[in-house]
C-alpha cells in the first residue's frame, strides 16, 4: 500500500483517509478486511445513528448495521466512483432499515403503518435522563411515512444536501423538498400539541 493511503487520524480523532482509497481497497480481495475496518471507523457511527433513527430499537439497528456491512462486502463490485462512497453506504443502510421494517409489518401492513409501534419504542429506548423535547421529536419522526422520515433525517441530522439525498433515496430534488417540508410541518405540529 502506498504511503499516502495509510490511515491518518487527525487531531480531532477522526479518520482522514480518502473515500477513493477506501473504495480501491474494497475492490481488492487482499485488502477487503482493511477497507471494512476503515469504513466502520469513518462511517460506522453515522450509519448506526441513521439506521437507529429509522428502526428505533438498538437491537434492530445492530442487525441492520451488520447486514449493511455484509452487503457492502457482497456487492462491492457494484460500487461506482460516480457517487460518493458515503451515499452508497447510506443507500445500503437505508435499504436494510426499510427491509427490516417491511419484515416487521408483514404481508398485510405497509411500512408506514408501523408508526404507532415505533413511536412507543421511542420512549422505551430513550435514556432515563433524556430531554423530553428530544423524545417528542423522535416520536414525531417515528410517526412520519418512511419517505418523509428518510428525507428529514438525512437533511436534519446528517446535513446532507438534496443532491446527496437524491443519490441515496432516488427521488427528484423537488419531491425531496416537498417531503422535507411536510415532515417539518408534521413534526412541529406534533411537538406543539404534546409539549407541556
Amino acid at each position, binding site marked *: 500500500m502506498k504511503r499516502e493511503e495509510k490511515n491518518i487520524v487527525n487531531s480531532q480523532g477522526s479518520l482522514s483517509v480518502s473515500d477513493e482509497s477506501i473504495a480501491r481497497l474494497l475492490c481488492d480481495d487482499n485488502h477487503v478486511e482493511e477497507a471494512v475496518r476503515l469504513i466502520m471507523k469513518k462511517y460506522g457511527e453515522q450509519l448506526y445513528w441513521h439506521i437507529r433513527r429509522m428502526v428505533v430499537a438498538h437491537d434492530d439497528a445492530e442487525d441492520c448495521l451488520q447486514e449493511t456491512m455484509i452487503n457492502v462486502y457482497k456487492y462491492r463490485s457494484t460500487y461506482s466512483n460516480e457517487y460518493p462512497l458515503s451515499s452508497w453506504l447510506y443507500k445500503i443502510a437505508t435499504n436494510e432499515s426499510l427491509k427490516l421494517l417491511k419484515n416487521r409489518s408483514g404481508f398485510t401492513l405497509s411500512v408506514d403503518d408501523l408508526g404507532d409501534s415505533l413511536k412507543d419504542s421511542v420512549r422505551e429506548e430513550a435514556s432515563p435522563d433524556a430531554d423530553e423535547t428530544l423524545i417528542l421529536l423522535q416520536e414525531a419522526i417515528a410517526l412520519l411515512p418512511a419517505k418523509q422520515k428518510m428525507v428529514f433525517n438525512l437533511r436534519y441530522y446528517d446535513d446532507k444536501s438534496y443532491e446527496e439525498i437524491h443519490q441515496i433515496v432516488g427521488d427528484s430534488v423537488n419531491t425531496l423538498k416537498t417531503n422535507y417540508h411536510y415532515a*417539518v410541518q408534521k413534526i412541529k405540529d406534533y411537538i406543539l400539541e404534546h409539549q407541556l
Partner: protein
Amino acid sequence: MKDFDLEGLSREMPYKMPEHFLDDMTERVISQIGKQQRKQRRDHKIIALFASAASVAAVALLFLHPFGGGLDIPDYDSISQCASVDDLFQNMTADELGVYSMMSNYYGN
C-alpha cells in the same frame, strides 16, 4: 399561531449507543466476511475440480471415439435416400391418418 423552532433544537439523540459497540461490530463483520471468503474459496476449488474432471473425461472420450468414428451414426449419402413426405402419407394406415387429422385439428395445423 404558535410556532416551534426546530432549528434551535439540539441534534442529540435521546438514546445511547452501548460502549465499544462499534469495535465489537467491526470484529463481528470481519469474522463474517472471513467465513464468506473461505466458503467462496472452497466453492471455487470444487468448481475447478469438477471442471478438470470434465476436461479429462472429454479428452478420454475423444481418444476412445476419435471424431465420432466409433459411434453408430447413420451415414446418408444423399437426400434421395430419405423417404419423401408424400411416400410417408401413402404408407399410413387408416388409423394413423385418423390420428394425424385429429392432431392437426387440435393444434390448428
